[in-house]
């Protein structure tokens, strides 16, 4: 493609058009292509092949929306909350025997009726929200970047845009567009004003998780040329694409008669562009924890077990301190933090390890619980906590529910991204009556714990969605509402004041957890025999051991092993697990 005759960052549409012209000259036929990519994706993928280039792109959120220019390249990190189906658009049209394209833009750029040949292409609409329970540390670095970007582009932005526009075809009505969009900020105000009116009509379900509250910015992402199976509901994805606002302020909702309301996709009614920006996605990638880490990515591979061991020790020390010097509880907590579902057979989710810390009352909870949840917030990317009070259970909507009135999936508390950590505090639970909603919510929680599945209510039928959530339960006695894999009485010996950790340490620990979680795991032939024998022996002595208990032992073994950065199970670690289990059993007596 030669040197870029455009700036991918500030004039991505210019790049799109440029490459379209190129593609046309090399025989690309819009009439038969059904909108297939003509090289734009490769172009951008090449441009953003390394992390540093990507980090130049501003991240779209509630603060950056105020200064990011429309029609520039932005990034959006979020969870796919709803899929709004496909949208047909006039992808290419002939303007005086030259083909033009509308791909990656919202507005039709042709004067009405002037074109005779139009190709209808399709794109997918995804409604994305910031990941529920996203912690502060995942974004702070992008904040700095924004400032840098703002400084950088603030000066030459105007000039550059103008140059670009002159360079691109003057027939192109984008100049007009840009002129109209010159002050997006003002536009947004108008959009917001009308949107608040329309929003009031949207039935708000009570108890929407705090994460989707006012200051978080949803985004309507339009996906091109991507197989359907690529992106799934609740995936955490980074989209890189062109930001647009609809040029026309939303019409009054009053003038909409029922007629058009029923046919129109309703998303424009509910999502005024001022409130919900549109992003025409050029490239996207699924996000893992390490993408949120600042500097380095992962720890070196298992070659250096010493490093793992050192970090593990320091983290263990920290966790032990948090739990009032209860070493065993800290061990279990670490294993719990490393758990993740890595396979499903029928209804069994392999690899889950929920932990129930018991013998906690309200007072001790206020000490350990708050300390612990604070600590987890700084260690894990997504954390949420649900206080289990009768009132909350009876009123909150846990499971997502489809609202056919507005044709949207209403989020529930349990619509969360994979890898989220969930704290359930049962110490707050008082005796009381659960109504039907409460019973349903309790069932949802139970199902989540047992099968790692959440039921989505589509009114006429229900659908189970697989999730991967780490659940930590605090309760006085063993929780019967939520049967966890591991039940452990907490036996703190002293109360420590919260240790202050340096950002560097926190970063290391985050990195450690992310790395360990991503490690693969296997078992040697010999040890497999040992494990089998041990399991058989355990079952021979205690008939009450079910397959779940045996499965849990193996999960713990895996976590133990990866916590030392090792990918194969060793006898030592297996015995450590058995010992831990023995200690736990002892405590339960």
């Amino acid at each position, binding site marked *: 493609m030669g040197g870029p005759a455009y700036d991918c960052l500030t004039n991505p549409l210019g790049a799109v058009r440029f490459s379209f012209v190129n593609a046309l000259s090399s025989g690309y036929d819009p009439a038969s292509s059904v909108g297939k990519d003509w090289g734009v994706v490769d172009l951008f993928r090449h441009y953003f092949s390394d992390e540093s280039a990507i980090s130049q792109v501003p991240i779209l959120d509630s603060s950056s929306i105020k200064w990011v220019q429309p029609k520039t390249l932005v990034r959006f990190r979020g969870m796919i909350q709803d*899929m709004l189906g496909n949208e047909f658009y006039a992808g290419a049209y002939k303007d005086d025997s030259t083909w033009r394209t509308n791909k990656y833009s919202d507005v039709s750029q042709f004067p009405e009726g002037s074109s005779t040949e139009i190709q209808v292409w399709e794109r997918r609409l995804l409604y994305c929200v910031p990941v529920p329970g996203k912690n502060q540390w995942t974004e702070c670095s992008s904040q700095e970047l924004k400032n840098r970007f703002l400084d950088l582009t603030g000066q030459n932005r105007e000039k550059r845009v103008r140059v670009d526009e002159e360079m691109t075809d003057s027939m192109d009505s984008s100049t007009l567009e840009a002129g109209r969009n010159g002050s997006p900020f003002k536009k947004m105000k108008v959009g917001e004003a009308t949107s608040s009116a329309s929003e009031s009509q949207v039935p708000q379900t009570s108890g929407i998780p705090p994460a989707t509250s006012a200051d978080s910015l949803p985004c309507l992402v339009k996906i091109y040329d991507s197989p359907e199976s690529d992106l799934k509901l609740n995936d955490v994805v980074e989209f890189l694409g062109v930001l647009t606002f609809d040029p026309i302020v939303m019409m009054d909702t009053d003038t909409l008669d029922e007629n058009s309301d029923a046919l129109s996709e309703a998303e424009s009614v509910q999502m005024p562009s001022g409130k919900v920006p549109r992003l025409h996605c050029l490239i996207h990638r699924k996000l893992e924890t390490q993408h949120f880490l600042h500097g380095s990515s992962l720890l070196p591979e298992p070659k250096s077990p010493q490093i793992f061991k050192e970090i593990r020790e320091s983290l263990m020390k920290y966790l032990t301190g948090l739990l009032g010097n209860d070493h065993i509880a800290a061990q279990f907590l670490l294993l719990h933090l490393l758990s993740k579902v890595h396979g499903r057979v*029928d209804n069994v989710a392999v690899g889950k390890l929920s932990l129930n810390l018991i013998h906690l009352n309200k007072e001790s909870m206020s000490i350990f619980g708050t300390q612990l949840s604070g600590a987890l917030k700084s260690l894990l990317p997504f954390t949420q906590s649900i206080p289990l009070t009768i009132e909350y259970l009876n009123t909150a909507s846990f499971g997502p529910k489809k609202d056919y009135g507005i044709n949207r999936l209403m989020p529930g508390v349990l619509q969360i991204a994979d890898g989220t950590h969930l704290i359930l505090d049962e110490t707050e639970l008082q005796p009381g009556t659960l109504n039907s909603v409460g019973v349903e919510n309790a069932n949802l929680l139970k199902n989540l714990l047992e099968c790692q599945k959440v039921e989505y209510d589509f009114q006429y039928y229900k659908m189970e969605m697989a999730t991967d959530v780490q659940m930590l339960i605090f309760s006085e006695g063993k929780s019967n509402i939520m049967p966890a894999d591991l039940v452990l009485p907490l036996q703190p010996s002293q109360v420590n004041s919260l240790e202050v950790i340096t950002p560097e340490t926190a970063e290391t620990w985050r990195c450690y957890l992310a790395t360990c979680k991503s490690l693969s795991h296997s078992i040697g032939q010999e040890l497999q025999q040992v*494990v089998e024998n041990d399991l058989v022996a355990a079952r021979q002595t205690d008939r009450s051991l079910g397959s779940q208990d045996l499965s849990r032992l193996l999960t713990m073994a895996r976590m133990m092993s990866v916590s030392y950065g090792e990918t194969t199970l060793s006898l030592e670690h297996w015995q450590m697990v058995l010992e831990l289990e023995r200690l736990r059993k002892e405590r339960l007596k």
Partner: protein
Amino acid sequence: MASDSSLGNTNDGPPSPGENVSSPIENTYSSPAALHRRRRGRSSTPTQFATPPPPPSRLASSNSTPPTSRPSAARSKGRNGHGGGGGGGGGGDPGTPMSTDEPLPSSDDGEEDGGDDTTPTFVWGTNISVQDVKSAIEMFVKHFREARENSDDLFREGKYMVSIRKVIEIEGEWIDVDAFDVFDYDPDLYNKMVRYPLEVLAIFDIVLMDIVSTINRLFEKHVQVRIFNLRTSTSMRNLNPSDIEKMISLKGMIIRSSSIIPEIREAVFRCLVCGYFSDPIIVDRGKISEPPTCLKQECMTKNSMTLVHNRCRFADKQIVRLQETPDEIPEGGTPHTVSLLLHDKLVDNGKPGDRIEVTGIYRAMTVRVGPAHRTVKSVFKTYIDCLHIKKASKLRMSAEDPMDVDNSLRRVDEDVELDEEKLRKFQELSKQPDIYERLSRSLAPNIWELDDVKKGLLCQLFGGNALNLASGANFRGDINILLVGDPGTSKSQLLQYIHKLSPRGIYTSGRGSSAVGLTAYVAKDPETGETVLESGALVLSDRGICCIDEFDKMSDSARSMLHEVMEQQTVSIAKAGIIASLNARTSVLACANPSGSRYNPRLSVIENIHLPPTLLSRFDLIYLILDKPDEQTDRRLAKHIVALHFENAESAQEEAIDITTLTTYVSYARKNIHPKLSDEAAEELTRGYVELRKAGKFAGSSKKVITATPRQIESLIRLSEALARMRFSEWVEKHDVDEAFRLLRVAMQQSATDHATGTIDMDLINTGVSASERMRRDTFASSIRDIALEKMQIGGSSMRLSELLEELKKHGGNINTEIHLHDVRKAVATLASEGFLVAEGDRIKRV
């Protein structure tokens, strides 16, 4: 009805309709320019767009056009004369170019406008000749006969001529045309119809009108065509831009329907000044051109015309949203929806929650940004113009049983219809040699061991053939299974799983069920005061499986209700003035704990199960699931779990069939496969049965042990039929019978083992006492009699039981087992009942 394809004049309009292209939505409009659109006739050029007056009626114009392409008409006539239905196109006929995939170059549309009056024989943008299509349709309507009608009634009227006459008679408004018929008769016409539905259907309507008017000149209604049953059905997910303006058919569930919207078709205006009424003005593309001045010559007042609502004509319109059915949604996706536009008679044809199959035309239209804006967005709204709606038939909704009306408990997966592809997959699956093993492996794959139990359950799912003899005797085809086992042996899980799997079924727990709750009860309707029957669990699971957990905890009265259900398959009610017999053709799957919560191997099975023998005998298979500490089993479990964790977890699952497939497989087999006994199998059955009965009389034994009863042979037949069904086989083979015997034996060995002799003993189940036990008692009684005869005088001194026991032990010769006091008591009671002696507390006396 091809919404805008004309013919809005439904009741009294003149027979020549204008071309009322009405857009479904006010603030949007179908812009012909916006789409690569093939408008029929000449109404499609941009200039037309600017000039509102409606184009000349398509009807009139195409009638007046000189028939240019007669050759092809003649040809198809000739072909038809041979009586052949099919026959592809081709054949070097220049008049009918087939398979017009791509529209002609766009230069066409420029000329089209000018060539208006000469030969407008082509559908715009294509090289399809209007005349060709017209004559082909005429041929089809007039001459199509169904294949099964023999050639001897060649002079009978065609299928659709008959229906046209019928429509005229009942003054109907439409004719349903099966697309398969069209394809059979003329595949080329079918293809054209699917590709260019707007044009072809309009022509179809014209043809119908022509025919109608030849039959009955005075018939004023417009008969429209409704196509249904397309050869291919799309899924909502696969709709894409290339489907626009094509005829499609898809399935889905209605989730929302709007209220009925009156849509104006003809407007009448009145002059406010002089009171002059204008002629009806027909809606053109969703717009009515209001006359700027009064049309009366004398008045001519400007801006005086006002709409007179009650003289306008309106048509019904409704917008319905259709959503994908759950089985089409891929993992991690949400259901897609699509809007449907219903007109006239189709309105209110379905309500939310209905599953329907829709045939219609996929349309897209531009969206105006606001009602006041002329600019359009570059996106399109899509919808389906409905031609035909068919409610999905329910797989198990046979008309015979009225209880099915209660659909609140019907499961979603019940009415899954099979398309050809699925069917083929099933056929393939059923042909696999290890299908039986695979199915049993796929059944509750997370429950370990219990292979034979699973096989039994599988048989229950598939079921045998119910038989109704002319004499009125019924033989049930349902297989009843009882699981008895130690706590924690995943019985309930198995039950839950079967419940989930069975196409229809109820899960109840014995403890919470009352007799009426299980069968049916009579209640007074609070509003009308009438007595009504409410179905209980067993009636509701008619033709399904009723799973009863905690069978042993059930009250006796509730259990006794099951007697009738399990053999006669009906529930009889006689109370409160209602005497009824309801069908309850249900398989019962019950599970129970042993009476002492854990199985006591020292007690007999009957004593362990503690259920009335009459009920027990009605179970075809009784499985004892005992938790035996078995290292081998534990090792396998351990191996499995290790594999689960360290190998690719999915690979273990690979062979298993997923639950939805299994459900549909079972439903399909139950509905469509009705195996019969082959001679060989029947022979084997007889032989095996005789052998089974013989087995009781083992060598040198005089003990009469009845090992099998006629009930067992019925069970065996049912089991072997179920086994044949699994293979989709219409014949029960010998190996099915062998397997049935094995299953029975396995079940019996566990449940009917006489612990004294170790042989199979059906008496144990039927009477609660084993033959050897009976024999032992007999021996006992006779020795006591001997002793009594020896030691005691009639009316003489009494004897203590303990003394008697001592005596018995001394005699000991013919009693080889240990003797307990309670055995003696029992024997004494027997003798007492014979009037041989009298027992007074601890002492006995000879009488």
